[in-house]
């Protein structure tokens, strides 16, 4: 008993010492004195860490008293560390000034399902940063992504190097991720670009080419990952107001209303962060009169995000969003005799009188939870679950169509660095899609089970990547269909440049809509085809990136080659007078993707040029000759320039899309190349920022989708106040 008492006495000072803690706080700034956001502040040998907020400030609580080594790391800056002595029950202030690292490539997370320097990734990746989104003053995510090199939107349908064409929303050959979580619709396989407010997106990563080796179905042509903003320390409030109007038709004979079409909206985001909990909530609404007849739209939005740090190396992230849209549907423009045509062959701003009042109500929501843990610098893992729900009703003559669908997903993933030169990523993924109720798709389910692995290892100066994924697909609980998607690639730094080469396979499982749709289109019956098989493609790419003039000028060029087969298309069966989706065509897409960035070109001027040459052919079959693939432009050119003058900036984008060689449905309709000039100006003063955007400034009248007028000139002003 006496010995035990002595032991307790001996341990008492240690216990008292363990409870003695203080706090450390301060600011992290760059050499110009600006706060560095999202810098990681940690204590060497401890699991204590935090990130700086928007203004660069940080605070760490419960720091053991005594000498510690405080370390700061931030993207684009050289790391700094300092030894300080923490006094018990007191606060110690430590400020850092970080020096920028020259020639630093951005960090991306999508190409390999892990953090990588952009110059180390095997496929081509285009980045759209939050500063680029803010500079362009866009109001929707698809507008933000639309000008990325090699990317083009056709009436809301995304194309990466001509991947998808235009299939009226049924099936996308591009996979959408929200913070790495798949978000394509469960029934149609398409993408709801209005799921998230654009203001919540920090950056967009666009991975080009087949990505099924890591992401499975739908990543046939590429992957778009929307990465949402982090939640900074302390309380913040951001208010965004937008307002604007649309130009009228440039010719009197096309006028369709006497007043000016207007649009406006408001969004508020509030956040609070202090470890271990952080949270953010966004609300927004928007109304648009539209730029043509029967084009009004109302949008409501709610998004939330939370983080809980379970321990210094384990974090729980939950997020969700809900969006509701009600919009009139200007399905196609009016042709002679079907509206007040005023003697014209077509009226691009008007719709068929019988279609007036057609509208859609569309609700969508998603929720995700991710647990991530990094027990050591060599090992990390995550587990996630997700749920996406879509619910739409098309109110149209002569009958309404509706569908309610879910997509549930889950994934576990581990990343291991066995030694300095090797990285191994392994994981398993499940997805379960169902159509809960629908008058056109029936009630069906589709399950996907997958396992994947990818390894990267050094070979001299080169880094080689090999990996594969196997997907098992089951429809309505039936037999499993297996699809194997390998990928092989490598990067080789040579001087100031980096060569990259890769080859991989992509596939897309037919959507439940394509398999089971049963409806009428223009009075013709559309019948289901449950025996549809996945479409697939092989993509090969050779790319080179190089910096010039002290890295102020960067060139990235890639040659790509895609061979696709069993592409799913609607087919009119004349002996049955019915339409059905079938695995029909083989296609070849070959081209060059080039981007040149001069930032800055002069002290105040930054410019970029992005050009994609695309040769897209539908290959000959037993019953049809070779021909151009529909809805693919041969040339896609984007020029951008930004001029900064203190708190004011001016900029312009010019997008040229060559005339489609072939379209479907109305092949003989007039069509032109698209030449769209966007002008912008911005002013920033303290917590207030104002952006002016004049999109399609020359009011160039064109269409990319048959009988669907592309947006005309619109002037919008966005004012953002941040507290």
């Amino acid at each position, binding site marked *: 008993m006496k010995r035990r008492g002595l032991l307790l006495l001996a341990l008492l000072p240690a216990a008292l010492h363990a409870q003695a803690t203080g706090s450390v706080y301060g600011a992290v700034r760059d050499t110009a004195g600006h706060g560095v956001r999202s810098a990681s502040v940690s204590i060497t040998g401890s699991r204590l860490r935090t990130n700086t907020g928007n203004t660069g400030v940080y605070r760490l609580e419960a720091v053991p008293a005594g000498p510690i080594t405080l370390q700061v790391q931030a993207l684009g800056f050289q790391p700094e560390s300092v030894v300080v002595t923490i006094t018990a029950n007191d606060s110690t202030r430590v400020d850092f000034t970080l020096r920028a690292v020259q020639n630093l490539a951005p960090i991306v997370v999508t190409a390999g399902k892990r953090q990588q320097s952009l110059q180390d990734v095997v496929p081509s990746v285009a980045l759209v940063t939050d500063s680029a989104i803010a500079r362009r003053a866009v109001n929707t995510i698809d507008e933000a992504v639309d000008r990325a090199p090699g990317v083009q939107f056709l009436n809301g349908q995304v194309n990466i190097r001509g991947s998808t064409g235009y299939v009226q929303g049924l099936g996308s050959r591009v996979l959408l991720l929200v913070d790495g979580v798949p978000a394509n619709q469960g029934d149609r396989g398409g993408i709801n670009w209005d799921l998230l407010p654009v203001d919540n997106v920090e950056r967009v990563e666009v991975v080009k080419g087949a990505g099924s080796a890591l992401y499975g179905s739908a990543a046939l042509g590429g992957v778009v990952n929307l990465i949402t903003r982090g939640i900074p320390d302390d309380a913040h409030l951001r208010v965004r107001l937008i307002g604007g109007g649309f130009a009228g038709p440039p010719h009197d004979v096309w006028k369709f209303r006497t007043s000016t079409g207007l649009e406006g909206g408001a969004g508020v985001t509030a956040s609070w962060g202090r470890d271990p909990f952080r949270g953010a909530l966004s609300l927004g609404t928007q109304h648009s009169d539209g730029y043509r007849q029967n084009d009004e739209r109302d949008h409501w939005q709610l998004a939330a995000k939370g983080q809980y740090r379970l321990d210094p190396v384990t974090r729980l992230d939950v997020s969700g969003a809900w969006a509701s849209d009600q919009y009139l549907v200007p399905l196609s423009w009016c042709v002679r*005799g079907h509206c007040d045509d005023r*003697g*014209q062959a077509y009226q691009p701003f008007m719709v068929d009188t019988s279609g007036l009042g057609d509208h859609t109500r569309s609700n969508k929501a998603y929720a995700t939870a991710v647990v991530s843990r990094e027990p050591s610098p060599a090992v990390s893992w995550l587990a996630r679950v997700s749920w996406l729900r879509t619910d739409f009703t098309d109110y149209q003559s002569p009958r309404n169509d509706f569908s309610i669908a879910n997509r549930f997903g889950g994934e576990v993933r581990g990343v291991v660095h066995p030694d300095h030169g090797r990285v191994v990523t392994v994981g398993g993924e499940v997805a379960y899609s169902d159509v809960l109720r629908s008058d056109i798709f029936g009630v069906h389910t589709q399950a996907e089970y997958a396992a994947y692995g990818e390894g990267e290892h050094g070979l001299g100066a080169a880094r080689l990547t090999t990996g594969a994924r196997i997907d098992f697909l089951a429809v309505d609980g039936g037999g499993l269909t297996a699809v194997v998607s390998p990928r092989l690639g490598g990067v080789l730094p040579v001087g100031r440049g980096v060569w990259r080469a890769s080859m991989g396979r992509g596939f897309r499982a037919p959507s439940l809509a394509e398999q089971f749709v049963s409806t009428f289109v223009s*009075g013709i019956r559309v019948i289901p085809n449950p025996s549809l098989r996945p479409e697939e493609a092989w993509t090969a790419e050779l790319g080179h990136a190089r910096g010039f003039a002290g890295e102020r000028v960067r060139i990235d060029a890639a040659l790509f080659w895609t061979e696709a087969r069993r592409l799913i298309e609607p087919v009119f069966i004349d002996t*049955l007078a019915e339409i059905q989706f079938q695995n029909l065509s083989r296609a070849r897409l070959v081209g060059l993707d080039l981007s040149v960035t001069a930032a800055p070109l002069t002290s105040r001027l930054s410019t970029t040029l992005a050009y994609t040459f695309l040769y897209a052919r539908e290959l000959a079959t037993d019953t049809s000759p070779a021909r151009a693939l529909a809805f693919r432009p041969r040339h896609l050119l984007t020029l951008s320039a930004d001029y900064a003058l203190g708190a004011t900036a001016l900029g312009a984008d010019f997008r*040229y899309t060559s005339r489609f060689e072939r379209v479907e449905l109305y092949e003989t309709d007039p069509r*032109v190349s698209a030449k769209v000039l966007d002008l912008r100006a911005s002013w920033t003063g303290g917590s207030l920022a104002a952006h002016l955007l004049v999109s399609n400034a020359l009011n160039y009248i064109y*269409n990319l989708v048959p009988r669907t007028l592309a947006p005309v000139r619109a002037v919008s002003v966005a004012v953002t106040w941040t507290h």
Partner: protein
Amino acid sequence: MRSRVVALAALLVACDGGLEPAPAPTSCPKSFTGICGTVTIRGAIPESTDVVYVVAYQTFPQSRGDLFTYTPLVPPTISLVDSTYFYTLAVPNGRYEWVLAVWKKQGMLTIANADSLLREAGYYKRTDADTSLYGAGIVLVNSIGTDSIDFVIDFDNMHPVSFYFPAAAAVRR
């Protein structure tokens, strides 16, 4: 600086063009390959009218199973507002045995109900005196618009599918 101004000017010049107003044609447009003509509308338009199409067959259908081998896949429609209408029918080069107007009744079309929903409402004949069902009004298309393929739509004298293919004729699949 001058080069930048020139580049900007070139950019602006490049931005002219785009879609322009296009008056309804009264003759075959230039750079058009297909068939054009004027249809004259007679008779009382049925209240149950959904739409009237113009279509062409390279070979006159031999059975009900051939009914949907027409071209083009998405045929143009006829406006019934005035008593005449100039149509343009974009079709590939070739020989067309039957150019006709098809009246469609309101309702969802299937091959099973084609007889009740579709009517032949008039077709091209070389002369009004021609009483043959087809063959006399053959149209040739050769890389330009073949004009003056005029005919009459007579809503008082329409013919169902069974007029050409009696119900006893088997549906070929």
